[in-house]
């Protein structure tokens, strides 16, 4: 049991720091770039990924001993696609605005490399508990990164972080609300996405190098 606890802990820490997706593993970049225009969409995306990861990890872990090599990929994609569809449907039903905003990027979770990666690297080798914790941690790590990037982009692009019409955090008071800050439109565009992620990765490299 003690051993099991350590693996669970390891899996948890792994997802949130040692192997934090995007920054360390360099996987799942497309959604990262596409949905980080706002914290809210980043958060929604991240939570969807948490859901899919937990479910798919659990299912894959359950059937890990039954997999046949030639149908492996099929099985994984089938499982993942099913859960993604459910998540998509949920958003459509209960978060229609977000669903519209994220558009095709929700179904694209199916091909988000993180999910297959975890299915292969963790769920196919470990028990259900470890797999689920791994899924949770990896998903949260991903969400964390998305929110971090999104907050940079959203603040520079609008001056505020907007969750809903009534819940707005103003960081840099924008001109159109009588402030001084002229928003940087570029941050909402592809260049903002790529450059922010690039610089963040560089900063992470620099920080972790210093520690080592």
């Amino acid at each position, binding site marked *: 049991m003690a051993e099991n606890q350590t693996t669970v802990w390891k899996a948890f820490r792994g997802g949130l720091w040692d192997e934090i997706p995007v920054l360390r593993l360099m996987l799942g970049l497309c959604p990262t770039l596409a949905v980080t225009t706002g914290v809210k969409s980043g958060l929604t995306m991240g939570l969807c990924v948490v859901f899919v990861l937990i479910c798919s990890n659990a299912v894959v872990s359950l059937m890990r001993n039954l997999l*046949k090599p030639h*149908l492996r990929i099929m*099985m994984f994609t089938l*499982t993942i696609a099913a859960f993604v*569809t459910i998540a998509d*449907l*949920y958003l459509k039903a209960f978060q*229609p605005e977000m669903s519209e905003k994220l558009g095709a990027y929700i179904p694209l979770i199916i091909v988000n490399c993180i999910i297959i990666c975890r299915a292969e690297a963790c769920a196919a080798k470990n028990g259900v508990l470890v797999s689920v914790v791994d899924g949770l941690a990896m998903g949260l790590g991903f969400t964390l990164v998305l929110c971090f990037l999104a907050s940079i982009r959203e603040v520079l692009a609008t001056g505020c972080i907007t969750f809903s019409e009534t819940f707005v955090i103003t960081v840099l008071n924008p001109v159109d609300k009588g402030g001084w800050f002229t928003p940087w*439109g570029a941050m*909402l565009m592809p260049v903002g996405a790529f450059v922010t992620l690039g610089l963040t990765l560089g900063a992470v490299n620099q920080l972790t190098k210093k520690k080592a």
Partner: protein
Amino acid sequence: MSSKIALFFRESWLLMVSSLFFGGLLAITNAAWSPKVAENEIKKFNRLAGGLLTGATQFESVKDISMNLGKGKTAAVDIRKGLDASGNCLGWAFVCEGSGFVDTIKLVVTTDAGFTKMYGFGVLQCSETPGFGDKLNIKDGFYQSQFKGVPTEPFKLVKGGDPKALDSNIVAITGATVTSRAVVNALNEYMQQIKPQLVKQGLITQ
């Protein structure tokens, strides 16, 4: 042969069982949630249109109104009659499409019951460049406000001028002439074509 079938089932039962299972799961979820999804669609339209047509509580679709898109193509127009709680017609709301700078722009446009005055428009879909064309999106921004309560005669796009004057001169968004023009052109096209059809169906008078 039977050994082959056995092999097949030995190798593939898991995939097939899972397919069946996930198929079922999806179907159930869908059955449970799809009404909600459909409701959302209607809600969005109603919210936008309702916001512009104060007092309207329900919308009733009108059939057989279409747009001639040129080159022999036509498209049905989603146009609805706004009714208040007691069933009086308050005005019209329709979805209007035009091609903007980046992609198609979709608007919900509302007019009074006689189709003579515009109440304004709301944005259903717009992916114009942030900082440029997407100023169209600003609710009650200067651009949207220019359409509130102006007659439905053809609009004219001007660069510079007074946006506060409620007339058919529409002042373009600086740096986004294309978007501005797309909206003006689309509105003109739609209103010009819809009005006679409504008259023909006897829903409004000339």
